[in-house]
């Protein structure tokens, strides 16, 4: 049946566990290999470049803490995207949700904001950031449920709106009158700053919160009724509906988790790293979160590892770039490539090529 073709795609009967686990590793290796070509084109020695990336990321105390600091927001945005994608909610607005979370935390954490004792302020601001992220994602979701508008484009467009909004706020009502140079928001008060994990570094306890968040998501997804229903809704909506899973309500809850995690990421970044909001607070954490989520195959614990990989690339490339002159964008290229290679790798866990 069918004309003579050189190759046919045949669905595998079951996914070999070995492949599923090693798929991200293969994907990353292939991506690194392809980046190696670019490094060579830049005229730098490839193996040495890889070495320098690792050294710059982990070679010193300062480097390691910096890498871990960068891992924190990536874990949270990666979780945000993973949670959403699992239920087939295409949340590409993590970047925007990050910023509204940051803005909300900064606004309510400044001296004009919430008047709460120290130990209550941090959790309160984390909640505020999460809520801000939730609200931002609920709008596109509502448009999907009510009007059937694909949330991919709406969440993307909102990212740009939010960025402009942030710029407007920190040049206007939330402007820090004492800051010179680039506009920034009023800072949060001291009580709202997260304690450091390691002295004289930028590493703050946000990392711990992020890992705890990953554990919580893992437990919810694998142990709770909601987790089971959300998975069902993502895997097979019509079977889920047959079984009585309320699809609309489930998707709304998923959006709350997703938007909340992304908003939390922004709040924690403000409270942990700089203490105020700027328009370059996020170097694309929301978008990198998509790659992190896919590399982890949407698994919350895998997100932690994938986030670490991405952070390693970003931090490591800075140092490598200074030493070898290869533009540091190589990190973004590698991370983006690993998304594409991961898709192909995942494909081969489900299909095989037959002659």
């Amino acid at each position, binding site marked *: 049946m069918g004309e003579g073709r050189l190759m046919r795609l045949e669905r595998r009967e079951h996914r070999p566990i070995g492949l599923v686990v090693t798929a991200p590793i293969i994907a990353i290796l292939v991506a690194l290999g392809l980046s190696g070509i670019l490094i060579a084109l830049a005229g730098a020695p490839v193996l040495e470049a890889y070495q320098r990336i690792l050294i710059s990321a982990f070679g010193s105390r300062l480097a390691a803490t910096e890498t871990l600091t960068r891992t924190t927001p990536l874990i949270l945005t990666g979780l945000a995207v993973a949670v959403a994608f699992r239920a087939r909610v295409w949340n590409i607005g993590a970047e925007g949700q990050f910023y509204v979370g940051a803005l909300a935390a900064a606004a309510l954490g400044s001296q004009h904001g919430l008047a709460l004792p120290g130990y209550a302020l941090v959790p309160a601001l984390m909640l505020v950031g999460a809520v801000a992220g939730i609200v931002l994602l609920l709008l596109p979701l509502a448009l999907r449920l009510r009007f059937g508008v694909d949330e991919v484009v709406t969440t993307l467009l909102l990212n*740009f709106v939010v960025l402009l909004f942030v710029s407007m706020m920190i040049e206007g009502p939330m402007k820090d009158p004492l800051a010179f140079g680039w506009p920034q928001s009023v800072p949060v008060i001291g009580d709202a700053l997260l304690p450091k994990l390691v002295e004289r570094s930028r590493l703050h306890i946000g990392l711990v919160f992020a890992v705890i968040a990953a554990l919580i998501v893992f437990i919810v997804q694998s142990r709770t009724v909601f987790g089971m229903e959300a998975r069902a809704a993502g895997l097979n909506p019509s079977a889920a509906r047959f079984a009585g899973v309320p699809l609309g309500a489930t998707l709304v809850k998923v959006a709350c988790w997703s938007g909340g995690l992304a908003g939390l990421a922004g709040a924690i970044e403000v409270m942990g790293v700089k203490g105020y909001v700027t328009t370059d607070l996020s170097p694309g954490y929301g*978008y990198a979160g998509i790659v992190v989520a896919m590399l982890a195959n949407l698994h919350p614990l895998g997100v932690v590892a994938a986030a670490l990989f991405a952070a390693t690339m970003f931090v490591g490339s800075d140092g490598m770039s200074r030493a070898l002159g290869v533009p540091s964008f190589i990190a973004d290229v590698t991370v983006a490539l690993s*998304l594409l290679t991961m898709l192909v790798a995942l494909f081969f866990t489900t299909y095989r090529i037959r002659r």
Partner: protein
Amino acid sequence: MSEALDIFASAGLWGAVLRIATPLIFGTLGALLCERAGVLNLGIEGIMTFGAMIGWLAVFQGGSLWFGLLAAALGGAMFGLLHALMTVPLGLSQHVTGLGITLFASSLSYFVFRLVVPVQGTPPTIEPFQPIDFPILSDLPLLGSTLFNQTAPTYLAILFALLLAYILARTPLGLAIRMTGENPHAAEAQGIDPIKVRIGAVVAGSALMGLGGSFLTLSAFNSFFPTMVQGRGWVAIALVVFASWRPGRALLGAILFALFDAYQLRLQTIIGNAVPYQLFLMIPYVLSIVALVAMARRARVPQALMQPYRRGER
């Protein structure tokens, strides 16, 4: 208030409209072509970025402006081929693949640019396209500055719009593309290969996207800087829906959009500091969302859009 309305009478406004519309026209046409064949190409933002970069780079390295356009089209086509190979024969998620292509193409653009042009005070510039001077027509009162004082790529965009409209509506190739996007199984039953048609459409559409990006560096501005595409790709995706997947309407939609954009720029100068400029800049994105909602259940979506085609599966 009268000043606000006066803007519409100013010659500068309408000339600016076509200029601002050009990248949108290219982008929307490109996305439209992909979607008509049944493939959603979310790589548009990255492809436009790459087109902007490579077109500029080709000229910077000594090529002619037209060579720059060609380079941008080829660059776009390249990423289009990558997207097509992943989503059509392999049937991978069109959403995630497209986003991956956007991230990849954008970051590659910045990487290559930075490689050739090290960081310096002001980025280097090239000599962009100049407005074409038509003998008598350019001097006409309003029409002159609007229609007859544009650069070559703008005319190219309008030409492509008309060409694509014709091809889709009146040629066998256009019919094959449309049928592939509506019911690939029916297309196959009648002797058309949906896989080849989809790949071809995506490659051609991506070439158009690349051209749209290159307008920004070869005509509008004369240098390349990161994030210069500013979400125009996503606006184009929304415009495709707004145009009901028809090239003629895409042309009008892009112009309408550009009108809002050009208008708000001039309105800013009138209103001054009373209203933050960011609110004005938000308008295109908000309008795109509104357009999507307005057309939501009304538009005639190509029925097989986003459904991977697998041979033999009914």
